[in-house]
């Protein structure tokens, strides 16, 4: 469904992405792991044209787009097929929860208002926020905000949802809320590309885990494989650091 080929991206002299290839099938849940600065966010942003890549191709169904020289129309089309869930939510501060969810439908897709509201309500219900429909972001907890962010993404009914560390700005206790929602929609068959540090999510939900470092994909495999038998040394080191051994309790 989505294939990315040989994506390159530099900031100034700093080459951040050094030729990444990626293939996602319909219904896949792909998790990207990697140390800070390895280019995970940049990769996601390039896919959604929030950054312009220096080189590379995206193949979206039968649409082939040059990431560097995409036209406005192509960009618009790709953005219509994707949705982005941001690390720090980025809810529209001046809109209520339901308005946040329907904005893209009504204005971007020209869905009639009444219909958009129905879709929006369903999406908010799915993330368990039926009772917060008319709250402004400033009146919601971080976990609730991020759930609105996810509702905003699923309401668009995109081909794929991109998640950039959706839980890392949350208090440990609120992480659970959001992960649960993500698991639910994953199980419904939504295609997802997720950057996260939550190993439990990767292990339980993903059908592919990609480990990135220094702007390239170091290793990719099924989660059982990569967690129990990582092949590359860098992957081993990283996993050791993120999942310290003394983190294991038997309650």
């Amino acid at each position: 469904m989505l294939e990315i080929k040989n994506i390159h991206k530099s900031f100034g002299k700093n080459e951040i992405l050094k030729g990444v290839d990626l293939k996602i099938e319909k219904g896949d849940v792909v998790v990207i792991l990697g140390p800070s600065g390895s280019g995970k966010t940049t990769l996601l942003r390039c896919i959604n044209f929030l950054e312009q890549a220096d080189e590379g191709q995206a193949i979206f169904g039968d649409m082939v787009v040059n990431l560097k020289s995409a036209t406005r129309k192509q960009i618009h089309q790709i953005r219509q097929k994707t949705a982005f869930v941001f690390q720090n939510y980025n809810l529209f501060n001046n809109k209520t929860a339901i308005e946040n969810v329907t904005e893209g439908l009504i204005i971007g897709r020209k869905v009639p208002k009444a219909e958009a509201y129905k879709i929006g309500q369903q999406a908010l219900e799915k993330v368990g926020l039926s009772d917060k429909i008319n709250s402004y972001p400033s009146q919601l907890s971080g976990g609730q905000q991020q759930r609105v962010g996810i509702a905003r993404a699923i309401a668009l009914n995109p081909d794929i949802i991109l998640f950039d560390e959706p839980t890392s700005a949350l208090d440990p206790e609120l992480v659970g809320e959001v992960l649960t929602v993500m698991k639910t929609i994953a199980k419904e068959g939504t295609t997802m590309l997720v950057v996260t540090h939550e190993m439990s999510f990767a292990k339980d939900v993903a059908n592919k885990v990609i480990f990135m470092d220094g702007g390239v994909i170091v290793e990719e495999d099924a989660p059982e494989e990569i967690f129990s038998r990582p092949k590359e040394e860098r992957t081993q080191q990283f996993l050791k650091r993120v999942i310290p051994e003394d983190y294991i309790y038997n309650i």
Partner: protein
Amino acid sequence: MDYQFLVKTFFIALSGVPTALIITIVSLLIALPLGFLLALSRINRIPVISQLARVYVSFVRGTPVIVQIFIIFTSVPLLLKPIFEEYHVKTNIYDINPIWYAFIVFSLNTTAILIEVFRSAISTVSKGQLEAAYSVGLNNVQAFRRIIIPQTLVVALPNICTATVNLIKATSLGYALSLKEINLRAQVAANVGYNYIEAYIDIFLVYLLLCSLVEYLFKLYEKRVRKYKAVDA
């Protein structure tokens, strides 16, 4: 103190309020969008426009309004006259109502001030808001109209209020353009019997009323547009 005159002139001065308000409103209508666009050009460092905007802001902010009024008032007809003649425009340039000069001067002036106001306000709206708008499929214009501008406005509102109050006060310089605004009306009334003391008190009262009313309205409006900010802790 001539109280009778004081009361009479108060209403004479008050009758200048519409003129002051028209100038203020027209200037704001021109300056708000123009200031916003130029602020964007400065933030995005659009070549040429951004530099021109910078020079323009620095000149307008650096020189007294009265001097600007004078320069525009004197030089615009001098510059336009040959152009009108060249293209056989029939209108006599000197028949133009001086209020047009006021519109020009005060719009130019307010634009310069609002450029700076918007520049700082826009930078308080995080880039993420724009990105989120893109990500749900809004285009540039839609994103600005629905997401960025409403948020910018809230931050900018107190400063726009200050600029408006200053603008209203500055319209008192319209007397140099023979505009029958508050100040000039009161002074003309005062000239008959040289009752200048009373006239100045009336001018003071009218501006105080007018400006505090405007300030109050802005506060009300601010409260409304701020509602999404909830109860900030």
